[in-house]
């Protein structure tokens, strides 16, 4: 099927490549694309169209049109006309039921016409509503093109690369190469990207870098140009962008213009010159410019007989129609003159590929003289060279369509991607979609895989004629990225899920801990027995890894004044060595975080935050410091420090074994902070009681964390020490009604309504949120966060409704079974009127209402005797 060797051919005939089409072996040469090799093997039908499943063959042969989309090695929607042939490639047709040559769905083309007019899916399949699942299943099956290989998973790896470059040239044609050379000669650093195989090393001559095949997807602000280089997305930041994307050959609109055998001149040129293939045996050429008509010589040299050449500059036929047999071109009628042929070369001139320029902010206007849209007024730092800038030889402006009258009943396509016919466009106009932007959305013209490359200009021409105006008045549709189709995998980049682990993580794993996510942290849910872990804390001693707590050092001469001004609680009078709890509020009075603050000395405070709040709080402190310009330094030590909370009645005994510090209640009392060595490790010891029992938080340098943990477990074993996880901690803190910010509060909660008026010191001159809280106090509390215990045995779901008079009036935020109390307990937001001891609550559980009673004080140890013991 190949012609004798030709001077410009790209193929290397000395070697043969084998690939598989629908499982059958086929052959090609190095230098072939999958498309050219298939063409060489005699294949003419490459795809089935989107809606009508009409057979389609090579049209542009340059990666613009949708006609050669196939599955290659499991990847759908590959344009095989530009995909280099690889040994062993597995190629299949797509969007067919049956085979490419016999597609059952092509029945839509025969009889579907009256049932599938433009926009039919907006109007049909609506009733009866119950049938929608059926319709949906059907539509999902027929819509879309290729099928994604669900088994592929992450078998392909994608990466993202960030690069800065002085000059980025997009397009490796003559103009692009010249621009790249010129910039390189000026000593600028130049990268050229090309969609095809690129200009090759020789053109570059080592003076600039070439990346090909690679497609620029768009031009974004800041000179950002993402480039699809196959497995790598390169995000170029270019100081100057040179767009040399050339011009795109435009089809003519006439009945049968989509038949297999109708081609654009470029396709003919590539098939003959690059792959030495004869595109057809007898051809008709209809063109509006010199470039199109010049293929006649090429066709002759390839041995194609020329039946007729219609030069649209010299003659203006009224009607052109192509007729086919079995979807293949058989003859062409030009004003009634019938010509048998199997190849029709059509050309409606060339349209500058301006999309990237339009995205960059260039103005695009219709040039009536040349009959195309051209870019004008380019933004600074963007240049256009060559054909895209409108440097085109003049030609004729073809008519909007060459249809009408006669017996030519064939479909006349404006858009081959989405199977939009002239009839569809006329109907859309008749229905009132008279602007090109509305027509785009309604008919989906320009919305297919070619993104308007081949259909924008013809549809604008047709719109102009049907509306009795000109192309300039119709205008164009907005050009948006991506300019070339891109796989979602490439945009997503490498699949990875970053996790933060504490320095004690491996020990938890060894203990068989069940891990869970809390923000980016991996934390211990439990060591298999949450109830037993709770019991150990109540009866003996437990240890929990709390390294994830936010740990921020606030220091400087203004540190006390800074915290005083920021937190609702008082810190100016906090004595060194003492700890105080506070929530942290915004100017709207809302709770954003909570934690304890220990004063280490006059100028240094150790601020702890919730595990997920560390970064937010540290940014918040930094921000107010920037606003107020105070003498304060904020350092986030979260990752640098590990922390273990040792809690339970025997915690003191355990600690006493490991430190020289006097741990008696008299000298180390509740809310004291001390620095001492524990098991030889320098620690900051905070005596606080989130879990409600006598407890010490030991903070030390991260690398010591694992050793400290192991020593505690070893030396506490005979005291009944058990490690405990988050689940146990949740039960323990709930027994004390200690809130979890983010669990029991949301973005609307304030400290007064959350039941913590004692942290709000209204007598302070100023603190962030004071004004809002004063207003809350004046308007009165509307809802309250209260504790409740269930009358029955059911544990209500978190998020469950509190029902008053049959209406939802509040919600459960936390609920757990307390083994210690032998009751289900929880926290809930209720209307303020219900926030009274023993008030009855109705909570919806699985559709039933369950009774609960309000408990305003901690369920366990309400006076904090255990904490202070």
């Amino acid at each position: 099927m190949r012609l004798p060797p030709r001077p410009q051919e790209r193929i290397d005939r000395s070697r043969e490549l084998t690939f598989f089409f629908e499982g059958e072996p086929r052959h090609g040469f190095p230098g072939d694309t999958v498309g050219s090799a298939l063409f060489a093997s005699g294949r003419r039908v490459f795809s089935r169209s989107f809606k009508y499943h009409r057979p389609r063959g090579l049209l542009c042969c340059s990666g613009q049109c949708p006609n050669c989309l196939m599955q290659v090695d499991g990847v759908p929607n590959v344009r095989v006309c530009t995909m280099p042939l690889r040994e062993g490639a597995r190629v299949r047709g797509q969007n067919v039921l049956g085979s490419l040559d016999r597609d059952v769905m092509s029945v839509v083309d025969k009889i579907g016409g009256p049932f599938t007019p433009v926009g039919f899916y907006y109007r049909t399949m609506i009733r009866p509503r119950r049938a929608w699942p059926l319709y949906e299943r059907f539509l999902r099956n027929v819509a879309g093109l290729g099928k994604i290989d669900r088994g592929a998973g992450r078998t392909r790896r994608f990466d993202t690369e960030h690069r800065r470059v002085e000059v980025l040239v997009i397009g490796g044609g003559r103009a692009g190469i010249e621009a790249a050379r010129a910039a390189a000669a000026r000593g600028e650093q130049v990268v050229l990207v090309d969609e095809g195989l690129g200009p090759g090393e020789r053109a570059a001559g080592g003076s600039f870098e070439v990346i090909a095949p690679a497609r620029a997807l768009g031009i974004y602000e800041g000179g950002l140009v993402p480039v699809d280089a196959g497995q790598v997305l390169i995000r170029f930041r270019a100081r100057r962008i040179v767009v040399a994307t050339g011009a795109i050959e435009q089809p003519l609109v006439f009945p049968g213009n989509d038949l297999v055998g109708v081609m654009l001149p470029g396709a003919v040129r590539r098939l003959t010159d690059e792959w030495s293939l004869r595109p057809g045996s007898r051809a008709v050429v209809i063109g509006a410019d010199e470039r199109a008509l010049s293929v006649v010589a090429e066709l002759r040299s390839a041995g194609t007989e020329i039946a007729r050449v219609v030069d649209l500059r010299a003659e203006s036929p009224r009607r052109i129609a192509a007729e086919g047999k079995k979807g293949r071109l058989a003859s062409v009628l030009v004003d009634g003159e019938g010509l048998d042929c199997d190849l029709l070369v059509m050309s409606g001139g060339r349209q500058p590929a301006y999309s990237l320029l339009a995205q960059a902010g260039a103005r695009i206007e219709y040039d009536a003289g040349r009959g195309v849209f051209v870019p004008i007024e380019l933004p600074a730092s963007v240049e256009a060279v060559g054909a895209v800038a409108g440097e085109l030889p003049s030609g004729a402006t073809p008519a909007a369509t060459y249809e009408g009258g006669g017996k030519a009943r064939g479909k006349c396509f404006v858009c081959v991607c989405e199977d939009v016919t002239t009839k569809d466009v006329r109907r859309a106009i008749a229905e009132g979609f008279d602007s090109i932007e509305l027509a785009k959305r309604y008919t989906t013209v320009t919305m297919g895989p070619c993104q308007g490359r081949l259909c924008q200009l013809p549809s604008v021409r047709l719109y102009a004629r049907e509306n009795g105006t000109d192309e300039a008045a119709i205008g164009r549709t907005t050009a948006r990225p991506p300019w070339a189709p891109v796989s979602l995998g490439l945009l997503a980049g490498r699949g990875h899920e970053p996790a933060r682990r504490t320095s004690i993580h491996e020990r938890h794993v060894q203990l068989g801990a069940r891990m869970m996510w809390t923000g980016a942290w991996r934390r211990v849910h439990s060591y298999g027995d949450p109830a037993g872990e709770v019991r150990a804390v109540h009866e003996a001693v437990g240890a929990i890894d709390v390294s994830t707590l936010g740990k921020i050092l606030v220091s400087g001469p203004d540190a006390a004044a800074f915290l005083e001004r920021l937190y609702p609680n008082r810190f100016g009078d906090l004595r060194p060595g003492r700890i105080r709890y506070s929530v942290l509020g915004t100017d709207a009075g809302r709770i954003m975080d909570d934690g304890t603050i220990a004063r280490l000395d006059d100028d240094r405070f150790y601020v702890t935050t919730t595990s997920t709040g560390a970064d937010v709080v540290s940014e918040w402190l930094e921000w107010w410091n920037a606003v107020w310009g105070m003498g304060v330094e904020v350092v986030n030590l979260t990752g640098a420090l590990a922390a273990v909370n040792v809690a339970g009645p025997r915690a003191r005994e355990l600690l006493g074994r490991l430190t020289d510090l006097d741990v008696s209640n008299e000298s180390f009392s509740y809310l004291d902070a001390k620095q001492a060595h524990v098991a030889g490790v320098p620690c900051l010891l905070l005596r606080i009681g989130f879990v409600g029992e006598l407890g010490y938080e030991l903070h030390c340098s991260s690398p010591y964390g694992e050793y400290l943990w192991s020593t505690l477990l070893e030396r506490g074993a005979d005291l009944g020490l058990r490690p405990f996880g988050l689940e146990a901690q949740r039960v323990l803190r709930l027994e004390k009604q200690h809130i979890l910010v983010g669990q029991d509060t949301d973005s609307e909660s304030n400290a007064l309504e959350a039941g913590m008026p004692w942290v709000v010191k209204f007598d302070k001159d100023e603190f962030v949120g004071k004004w809002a809280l004063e207003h809350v106090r004046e308007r009165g509390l509307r809802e309250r966060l209260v504790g409740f215990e269930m009358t029955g045995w059911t544990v209500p779901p978190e998020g469950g409704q509190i029902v008053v008079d049959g209406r939802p009036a509040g919600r459960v935020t936390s609920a757990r079974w307390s083994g210690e109390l032998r009751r289900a307990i929880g926290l809930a937001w209720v209307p303020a009127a219900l926030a009274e001891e023993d008030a009855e609550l109705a909570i919806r559980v699985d559709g039933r209402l369950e009774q609960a009673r309000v408990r305003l004080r901690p369920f366990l140890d309400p006076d904090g005797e255990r904490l202070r013991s």
Partner: protein
Amino acid sequence: MSFLIPCPNCGSRDVNEFAYGGEIAVRPEARPNVRELGSYLYFRRNVAGVQREWWFHRLGCEAWFQAERDTRTNEVLLTERPRASRDEAPPGPEAPALPDTPAV
């Protein structure tokens, strides 16, 4: 959004490295009434033009700074470290019209 921001400490970097801190609002000096508070908390001038705003270099030097950005083009005209105290602060933007929405 893909523009570049010249961080006063680190130089020109991709906007994705930064956290936006909002336009600079005038914090009331004395206790505001509910409407004034609501205006301060929730209403922004949202100008189409040059706006002074806070940025935080989250994936860099972790410092807050102020920028003047044209909201129409995302062109960042200037960045600088925050001015130290209230007295030196630039002439504040005009406060937006008071809303009727209660603040709390």
